[in-house]
């Protein structure tokens, strides 16, 4: 469950969001719509813990995740998935290393097994040792 209370975000001295109230219940699906510059991405970044709100708070499953000017729960501890617009593949790592980075908390053999499974499911197992910079440019 996600709860935003009196949420406000100011970046570079400009208010992007102000006094936003939002509650997303478990299993609920919502779509955030708005014109360019309305603050859709900023809202997602605040929920993910990548930006601290300038006012208000964010609670995840009842736990305080962010308060004004303070990120209390690290992004990686929030259990939130995030798809970036440009793919966000790290160009200095191989395909396998990119996948392994996200499995960092698991024991090494388990992480490798899951990585192999994921690459096979995406039919890119043969590209595992390629650097993503060369891979994405093809």
């Amino acid at each position, binding site marked *: 469950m996600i709860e935003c209370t009196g949420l406000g975000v100011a970046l*570079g*001295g400009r208010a992007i969001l102000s006094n936003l109230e939002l509650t997303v219940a478990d299993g609920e699906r919502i779509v955030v719509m708005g014109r360019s510059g309305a603050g859709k991405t900023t809202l997602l*970044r605040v929920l*993910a*813990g*990548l930006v601290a709100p300038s006012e208000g708070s964010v609670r995840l499953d009842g736990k305080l995740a962010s308060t004004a000017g303070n*990120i209390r729960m*690290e*992004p*990686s501890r929030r259990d*939130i998935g*995030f798809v*970036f*617009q*440009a793919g*966000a593949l*790290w*160009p*200095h790592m191989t395909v396998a290393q990119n996948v392994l*980075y*996200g499995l*960092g908390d698991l024991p090494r053999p388990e992480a490798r097994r899951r990585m192999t499974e994921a690459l096979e499911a995406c039919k890119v197992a043969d590209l595992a040792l390629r650097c993503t910079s060369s891979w994405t440019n093809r």
Partner: protein
Amino acid sequence: MATGSRWWRIAGTVAALAVFGLPLLALGLDAIRSLTVNPALAHLAIPSGRTLVLLARTCALAGATAILCLVAGTTASLALPRASGRMGWLRMALFVPIVIPPYIHALAWMRAAEWFRRMVAVAGVRLPAFQGFGAALWVQGMVYLPLTAGIALAAWSMIDPQLEDAALMRGSQDRSLWRVVLPLARPVLLSGALLVFVLCMGDLAIPSLFSVNTYALELYARFSATGRISDVTLMAVPIVLIGLAALVPAIRSISAAVSAPSTREGVAPGFWRSSRWTRCLCVGAVCLLAADTAGLCASMLSGLRGALWTAVVDAAPSVWVSVRMALFACALSMILAIAVAPLISHPGPQGWSLCALILIPLALPGPVAGTGALLVGGVVHGEWIAQVTPALLMAFRFAPFACLMTGARLARADMDAVDAGRVFERRRGNWMFRVWLPMLLPVLMAAILVVAILVVGEVGGSLMVMPPGQQPLSITIYNYLHYGASGTVSTLCLALFVGVLLLTIPGFVSWRRAWRLT
């Protein structure tokens, strides 16, 4: 005339050959002539015995300085980016020492060390004098620390924020820093260290002040003792080769970082959320940066106690020589950058050859570059050439920075925007003034700033070429430093600092404004 046209290529090549090629050609021909007369002189190009020791010591000093700057500069820059907004001025103040010549840093640290020695002596502890390899290493490190911290800031701003955010989504702050942010910034960070290495290899001001004999000092001493330029040229071969080997990989990354628009304002690899140890290291490095700035300010402000006005009036001719030299060198560098940048921005045989030609002056120690300028000046008759030679030498030594920075910006420019300008502009050639030049303006301003700062503080080459009765402020200060006239030195350093600020502030403001417009 289009920037890719035949005429532009010819003009750019001729300009580069005239400014960079002629002194190198003169040095080369002079060395060959000496070698044909006395082939035994070839041994000068291969260091052995004493010269080998000197070369090893120079490499060790430059290498240790580069490592110190890499570590301290990178860690300091990690803590700095968040200090934007109202605290932005404080961040800017920490970078002010970039514009201050090395020997002024040396003076500040000498005084600080002397003060510390006296304090400790009260407690009965006797410390050795602040001299030798360690002192030179420390001061050189402090001189180039703001530069490497600035390059590291540029490196952070080049990283795609989405890559850092993606790393944070799946790992802790420290893990994302070590596994993603630092590896992505590594080419630019290492290039900054290599640039420091090359600058230290050719520097003779700081080693001489701390009684450390280096290879660049030996070159100067050899010329002073024998007056034979060919000896200096041949002796400089190893140092030039080492410098070139370091410069080739470094220049491209740094130019790209300096000229690339920031991906976001105040980008930071999340310093405040990193571990306590990382934060302690970063804060320690920032304190070092702040100590250098504070020491410099205290040292220069002590000059206010002396007869400030009298000292400045006495040094007025030197100030005028410095200003004249800087203005001429900046103008020439700007013309050269505009002419040469289109040729080196795109790979090809001509571009690579010009790049190689431009890199050599950067690897030449000041005294060798000075002798090259002397040779060219000796060919042309007339009193005027003696007056122009110092400024030409400054363009020879420092215009490569302007050319490489502008070339790197041009290589990353949106050529569709330029083509659109050419299509829609009704007056022939007007697109250059309305699209092409405004697009390059920020980097040209930055390049001019770099050239102005370097020219005002230069010593090594000026020592060789200044006509009798004339000397720039940098040499006046350098001479006073050797005589130990510290009161006058402080006063003149303050005057030099104010002069540099007056020269650079308009350029800096224009650069910021131009960035916003582009």
